[in-house]
């Protein structure tokens, strides 16, 4: 049983992000990067399956600055191997990434592929469906837990109104993880140090032409709404003004 978990770096939103001069992307010059949180959950779920079944877990990412550290952290978490794909692309979109992964995964021959359900740069969560389609394998997104049973994987999905589903997919399958069965575990500084010193990161190259996936024509900050009205004064007066404002907008019954 071989599980591949995709890890992606996303902008670290510690500070306000800026639009670049061309107005086509965020300014990546000064922005920090970190592991996508959904991928973090995918990694945790992979390790949980490993602990339940004895599977091997390989963390896979695109060779960009900062990826080595993320792969080392994945090993500290419990992944067995770390692989980076050298493709000359710094920030492929989900469709291009799916093609690159498809090519690289042919060499890794996984039984199960996990990735985060989406990233801040892939709000529609397209990586998993693209990858499933390219590989011709069953796929599911919004996964909140996965257990391997024989040649199949049983997954949980949560829908609205408190409904949940359990689905069985034949292996190999591709899963987009929304949350792991339990919160990502803490990885101690000691384990991290050991992984940094002892992890051998393998490199695969992939050259799949991503093709024309479209380009961003314009990126801008969301437009500001109407300014807020600050109401101050004594509590009773403030309450009165709020009441009047609600009545004026027809939100509560007037007189």
């Amino acid at each position, binding site marked *: 049983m071989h599980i591949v978990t995709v890890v992606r770096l996303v902008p670290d939103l510690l500070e306000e992000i800026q639009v670049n001069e061309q107005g086509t992307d965020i300014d990546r010059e000064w922005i920090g990067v970190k592991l996508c949180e959904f991928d973090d959950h995918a990694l945790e779920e992979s390790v949980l399956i490993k602990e339940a079944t004895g599977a091997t877990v390989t963390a896979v990412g695109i060779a960009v600055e900062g990826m080595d550290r993320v792969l080392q952290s994945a090993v500290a978490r419990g992944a067995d191997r770390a692989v980076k794909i050298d493709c000359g692309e710094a920030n492929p979109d989900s469709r291009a990434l799916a093609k690159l992964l498809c090519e690289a995964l042919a060499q890794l021959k996984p039984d199960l592929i996990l990735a985060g359900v989406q990233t801040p740069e892939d709000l529609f969560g397209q990586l998993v469906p693209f990858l499933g389609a390219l590989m011709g394998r069953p796929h599911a997104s919004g996964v909140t837990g996965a257990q391997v049973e024989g040649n199949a994987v049983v997954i949980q999905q949560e829908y609205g109104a408190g409904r949940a589903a359990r689905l069985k997919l034949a292996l190999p399958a591709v899963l987009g993880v929304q949350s792991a069965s339990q919160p990502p575990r803490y990885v101690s500084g*000691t384990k991290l*140090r050991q992984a940094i010193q002892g992890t051998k990161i393998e490199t695969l190259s992939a050259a799949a032409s991503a093709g024309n996936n479209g380009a961003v024509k314009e990126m801008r900050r969301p437009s500001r709404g109407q300014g807020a009205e600050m109401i101050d004064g004594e509590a009773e007066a403030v309450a009165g003004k709020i009441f009047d404002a609600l009545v004026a907008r027809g939100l509560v019954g007037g007189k």
Partner: protein
Amino acid sequence: MDSKPLVLAALMVLAASFASYRFFLRLRPMFSAPGIDRLDHIGERLWGLVPNVLLHRRLLMIRYSGILHAMIFSSFIVLFTAIIQAFGSGLIPGFSLAPVGGNSVIALLQDVFAVVILVGVGMAFYNRFVIKPARFKGSNNKDATIILLLITSVVVSMLLEFAFHIAAGNEPSAAWRPLSSAIAKLLVALGFDGERAAEAAHILYWVHVSVILGFLTYIPGSKHLHMFAAIPNIFLRNIGPKGQSRTPDPKAAHIGLSDVRELDWKGMLDLYSCTECGRCQAACPAYAAGLPLSPKILIMNLRDALIGEETAPARPAGAPAAGSNLEALVGSVISEQTLWACTTCRACMDVCPLHIEHVPKIVDMRRHMVEAGHVTPGIQDAMASFQQYGNSFKKPARMRAKWTSGLDFKIKDARKEEVDILWFVGDYASYDPRVQRITQTVARLLRKAGVDFGILYDAEQNSGNDVRRVGDEGLFQTLSEHNIEALAGCSFKRIMTTDPHSLNALRQEYPAQGTSYEVIHYTQLLLELLREGRIEKAANGKVTGVVTYHDPCYLGRYNNGFEPPRQIFAELGYQLHEMGRCRENSFCCGAGGGRIWQDDTGVTERPSENRIREALALGDATIFAVACPKDLVMYTAAVQSLAVEDKIQVKDIAELFA
């Protein structure tokens, strides 16, 4: 005639064998325990027995208990002569202490101290059954009562034996035994004289030696084992730097304490020394806050786990055997909530009359939890932030020195220029908006005094002091290596910090990695500047109100920085009204050892609020002075939540200057 020596010898062999076997059961784990070097500096170790044993210095911190202990302890030493007499005369016909004053001075002392010990035991009974100090909660009252009854029996049987001998008219020391003689008069009046008295004395002799031998066999399973363990335990105390954590053995199979049998032999002796007196419990801020931690019960539970099934009080059915894995030690014997409750404030260790080391054991068990990934969400969040950014605020390193933008001068970059004072700012002082104001105040004070100082800007990371106490040893190594490397590239005379936690790490933890900085707290530097006349004293009528001062744990108990803050108040002309719990007995604000990154789950009263109430109870203090960024945060919040901003103001010492 005499079968006496044979019978006595047989009794002694029997009792000694049984007692030895019970001692052996206790000591057995110590023989296979990991080693620890506690036999260095013999002179210093011996000298420490004077205040700790002879003078009862820590015991007398609770006067009543200290006095009664001194009475029992001194009497025990004197009355040991009576034990020698009883067994010596029983085994060797003609044995007598008469040549060394056995029938004169020693006899008198025995009679006098029999009274002293009975009064002491009486006080102990009164303490246990009438006063009932809260610190005894959770202690084994039955065991203590049995011990007191045994001591009483030993002394009363001794007195009666002497009295019957005197009544029988065959006691050469009668003239030197006022009390025994008085009892003898009573016995004679009751018709015990001559042969009857001699017979009774004979019976009392056997009662006396039997009680002593019974006492001996009882001790190994009792808290009274401290009779044997206490003095060695004090002798073997830690005399190294208080603020230096133990570095895990690199050869060990894993980091941290997962099994009670992995304690080093001194750690085990700690457990056997515990008298369950509860002074640590009474001093513990976590216990006071209602959290599930009593340092006393922690030690008792570890002890019972170590003693194991054969002699420990029965554990509930289904509980695993003592300390064989995580589930058995951490999580069963000691709960995880107990370990996370500790602020590492060291109050327990500073009041323990036996110098038991609670905090290193807690940290060692935390290390085990951390390596197993068992941490609270708050700790996980903070540690992940340290791993990613080098601070707990999830702020980029570039923003570490952002507080300097509020100054109208540029602070030197110590990475590029030589400085006199390298200011290690610390996380809270750098990033917390409530503390940044104070950090700027300190900068202006230094500037005004013409101090040549600089900071590391974004090369500084958290010192790792509390990370190490949370139990993440690897992360501490990473942070400390980073800071040591940053400091190695700088040229400075001294390091100064406003943060006691950073002070402790740089002064006491880093030297284990080969550094040798001179590290001072800003209170010391400000005092120097005051005395050199480089800072004006507040001559502008700013000095109003009475000050009370809170000693930070990591400045006071850990680094003995008690005096400079107080001398600053005096220099500035403030009247200082001390709280009852000050200096070594200062009460922790509740933030240390990683507590500041956790929520208040289970807290019935925040230690910080408890402390503010204490300050308010002084009646006249309107300024609550602090000298630690975490204190500023904790106490400002406490004053707000108690809604007493109009009665008392939390101020950093730096704010008291003109």
